[in-house]
C-alpha cells in the first residue's frame, strides 16, 4: 500500500466531523459578522452601507472603547510577562520545588474568570481585605476596582494569564539542553548572563506564542471588565453585548466583532512575521515541543 495515495473521499470523510463542525458553527457566524457589519436594517436605507463603520469610527464613546479594549489586552499581557519570565527562570533554577510548585501555580488556569473577578473584588475593593490589612499601618488603599485605568480588571486578567504564560515559557525553557547551560557556566557566564544570553533567546518562540495568546485572550474578555472595570470607557466586548441584546443594534455588534477579530488576526500575522515565514515558524515551534 502506498501511504501517500489516499482516497480523496476517505480524506474528506475523516476531515468532515471536526472541520465541518467548525465551518458551520464557527465559519458561518464569523462570515455573518463580517458581512453583517456592512448591512443596514433601518427602513429606507440602502441594504449595503458603510454607515455602521462610519458611526463606529466617529463616535468618541466607541473609539474610547476600542482604545480601552487594546489597553485591557496589552496591560495584563505586559504584567504577566514581567511575572512569568522570572517565575519560569526560578522554576528551572530550583528542581526540588518544581514538582509541587509546578502543580499548584497552574490552579488559576481552571478557575473561571467570574471567580477571578470575585477574588479581586473581595480583596481590592473598598472595604476589602487589602484595605483592612493596610489600615492599621496607616496606608490608604487607592481605588483599584471600577477605577479609570481598569487596574482591578488588569489584575484579575493577569491572575489568569500568569500561569498560562508560565506554563508555555517554562515548557520552552525546560526544553533547552542542560549541557548548553552548563557549558556557558563553565565558560564563566553567571546565572543572569545565562538567562539573558542563552535561556531567553532559545525560549523566544514560546515566549512570543504566550504573549500573543494572552493578548488575544484578554482582548475579547467580557466578564472581568464588566465586573471590575469602570463605567466609562467600556471595552468593545461589553459594548457588543449591550448593543446586541439590549439595543438590538446588530450591525454595530458585527462591526465591533469584525474589528476585534481583525485586531487579533493582525497580531497573529505580526507573530508569524517575527518568528519567520509560516513554515519556518511552525518548524521551529514543532521541534520545541
Amino acid at each position, binding site marked *: 500500500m502506498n501511504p501517500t495515495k489516499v482516497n480523496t473521499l476517505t480524506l474528506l470523510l475523516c*476531515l468532515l466531523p471536526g472541520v465541518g463542525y*467548525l465551518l458551520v458553527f464557527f465559519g458561518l457566524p464569523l462570515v455573518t459578522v463580517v458581512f453583517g457589519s456592512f448591512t443596514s436594517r433601518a427602513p429606507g436605507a440602502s441594504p449595503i452601507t458603510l454607515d455602521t463603520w462610519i458611526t463606529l469610527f466617529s463616535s468618541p464613546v466607541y473609539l474610547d472603547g476600542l482604545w480601552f479594549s487594546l489597553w485591557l489586552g496589552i496591560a495584563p499581557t505586559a504584567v504577566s510577562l514581567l511575572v512569568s519570565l522570572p517565575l519560569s527562570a526560578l522554576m528551572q533554577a530550583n528542581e526540588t*520545588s518544581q514538582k509541587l510548585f509546578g502543580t499548584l501555580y497552574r490552579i488559576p488556569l481552571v478557575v473561571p474568570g467570574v471567580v477571578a473577578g470575585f477574588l479581586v473584588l473581595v480583596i481590592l475593593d473598598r472595604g476589602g481585605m487589602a484595605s483592612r490589612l493596610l*489600615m492599621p499601618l496607616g496606608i490608604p488603599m487607592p481605588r483599584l476596582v471600577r477605577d479609570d485605568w481598569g487596574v482591578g480588571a488588569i489584575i484579575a486578567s493577569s491572575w489568569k494569564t500568569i500561569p498560562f504564560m508560565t506554563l508555555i515559557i517554562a515548557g520552552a525553557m525546560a526544553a533547552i539542553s542542560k549541557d548548553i547551560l552548563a557549558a556557558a557556566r563553565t565558560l564563566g557566564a553567571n546565572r543572569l548572563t545565562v538567562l539573558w544570553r542563552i535561556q531567553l533567546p532559545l525560549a523566544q518562540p514560546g515566549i512570543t506564542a504566550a504573549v500573543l495568546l494572552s493578548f488575544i485572550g484578554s482582548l475579547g474578555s467580557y466578564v472581568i471588565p464588566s465586573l471590575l472595570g469602570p463605567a466609562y470607557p467600556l471595552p468593545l466586548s461589553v459594548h457588543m453585548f449591550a448593543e446586541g441584546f439590549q439595543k438590538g443594534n446588530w450591525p454595530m455588534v458585527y462591526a465591533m466583532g469584525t474589528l476585534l477579530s481583525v485586531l487579533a488576526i493582525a497580531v497573529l500575522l505580526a507573530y508569524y512575521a517575527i518568528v519567520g515565514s*509560516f513554515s519556518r515558524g511552525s518548524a521551529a*515551534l514543532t521541534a520545541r515541543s
Partner: protein
Amino acid sequence: MASRSSKSQGLVGFGLYAYLALTLLFPIIVIALWAFYDPKVGWFPPDIIPRSFSLSAWREVLADRNIWPSAMLSLFVSIVVTVLTGALAFPTAWALAQFPFRLKRAVEIFILAPVIVPGIVVAISLGEIFFRFGLFGTVLGVILVQLIGTLPFMIRILTATLEGIPNELIYAARTLGASPRVAVLCIALPLAWPGFAAGGLLTFIASFEEFEKSFMVGAPKVQTLAVRLWSYLGGDILVLPTAAVVTFILLTPMLVIFILAERLSKDDVMAAGLGKL
C-alpha cells in the same frame, strides 16, 4: 560552594512559595472567611477576621432549589461536550496525522482560528443565529457553542498523539488482514488513549468553567454554575457570602479533576496544545 548553592536554592524556593501564598492561599482564605462569617453579627471594616462564624450561607445555598439543578446541568453539559469533542475530533486528527495532502497547513490554521478570534464575537453572532432557529436559551445551544472552543485543542492534542504512533503497527495489522477501518478502530484508537485522557480532562475543565459563550447563547434560561455565580455577582444585589459558597462548590470538582489530570498525563499536553501555533 555547596552551602552557597543550597542557600540560593532555598531562596528560590522561598520566592516561589511566597508567590503562591500571595496569589493563591491568601485569596482562598479571604473567600473562606466570607463563606463562613456570621451575617447576623456582620463583618465590617476594620475587622480583619469576622467576630463570629456560622454555616448560614451554606445552609442558604444548599437549600436554594436552583443550585443543584445548576450543578447537575453543568456536569451534564461538560460530559456531553467532552464526549462529542472526542468523537468529532478523532477522525479529523487521524486525517491530519496520517494523510499527507495539499492545503494541510490551511486546514491547520483554520482549526486554530477559533483560538485566535475572540470567543465573544462568534458566540454573540451564533446567539442571534440560534435565536432564529429556536436554539437560543437551550441546553443544546450551549453545548454547540462550547464545542467551538474545545474542538481545536482536542484536535491538536489527538493529532500530536496519533503522529507518535509508529506506522509499522498499522501496517502490521493491515498485513495480517485487518481492513483500514478495523486497523484504525482496533490499533490507533486504543493507542490514542493518552491523548483522549489528557484532551478529555482539558475539555471537561474548559466546559465546566466556560462562562462567556454559554452566557451569550444560553442566558438567562440555561444557568450553568458559572452563569449562576455571575448572577450572584453582577446582579442588582451583590451577595458576597452566597457567591463565596458557590465559588467553593464550583472549585472543588475543578481541583479534583485538575490533580487527576496532573497524575494521569506525564507529558505536558497543555503546553503541547498551546505552545506552538
